[in-house]
């Protein structure tokens, strides 16, 4: 299965991205709870891009490890303002956007791997992965 890149440029693209991720998760063989986790993570992280960076993209990559295990890696990247304090942003209830402050810490709980890189004024890149 090939990787897929989806442009995130409007609120509607959030729904496009999570539907694409769910479809890929189904093809990889994820069960319903993991499909839902991956779709929800996509919704949260894609919305962050629209809200804070206005635009960016999501790359969805099916993957396999040496043990033959399958998984799905999702990369969300933008060239927006960046996150001033990643540690604070990862805390439950912290928000600068008037939301509930569940987006980043909540997303981390829904996946097996979560990596965040951000540079002020240059953008943010978040990589998440879930194994079958």
């Amino acid at each position: 299965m090939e990787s897929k890149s989806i442009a995130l440029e409007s609120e509607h693209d959030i729904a496009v991205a999570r539907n694409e991720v769910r479809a890929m998760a189904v093809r990889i063989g994820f069960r319903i709870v993991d499909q839902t986790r991956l779709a929800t993570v996509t919704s949260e992280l894609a919305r962050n891009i629209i809200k804070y960076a206005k635009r960016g993209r999501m790359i969805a990559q099916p993957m396999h490890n040496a043990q033959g295990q399958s998984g799905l890696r999702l990369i969300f990247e933008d060239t927006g303002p960046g996150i001033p304090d990643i540690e604070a942003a990862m805390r439950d209830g912290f928000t600068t956007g008037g939301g509930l402050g569940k987006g980043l810490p909540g997303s981390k709980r829904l996946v097996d791997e979560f990596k965040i890189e951000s540079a002020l004024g240059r953008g943010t890149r978040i990589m998440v992965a879930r194994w079958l």
Partner: protein
Amino acid sequence: MEGSRIPILKVGRVLIVPIQVDMDDQTVMHLQERILSELERTGARGVLIDISLLEMVDSFIGRVLSDIAAMARIMDARTVVVGMQPAVAITLVELGLELRGVDTVLNVDEGIKLLRDEFAVRDDEIGQVELNAFDGEQVNRA
């Protein structure tokens, strides 16, 4: 309008909102406005939102559900969310969402019961005939 695809059924003094499509943000916001204006227009006392076909509730939809409940409350109506899929419930809890102020029950039947018992919406306010028709639909779906 995208949001108009979600019907709002008035059954007696309860608004029934069966969400049957994946909603983008605009649809969600539009639905919130429509529910509130229907509450005002009809004087309904209860709002029953059926999310049994919703495959995901993220923090945005979760917040809007809480907002609808809070605003409906101010307009003297109670809100109950019915039919959440198990996978959605698991994900909601992991995400850390509480759906503050929103009562959730398993199905439409229980939702009607809750509105009737706890919120003092009388049987004749709910409208028995239409309710039975809706039950039938639920059974077929399951």
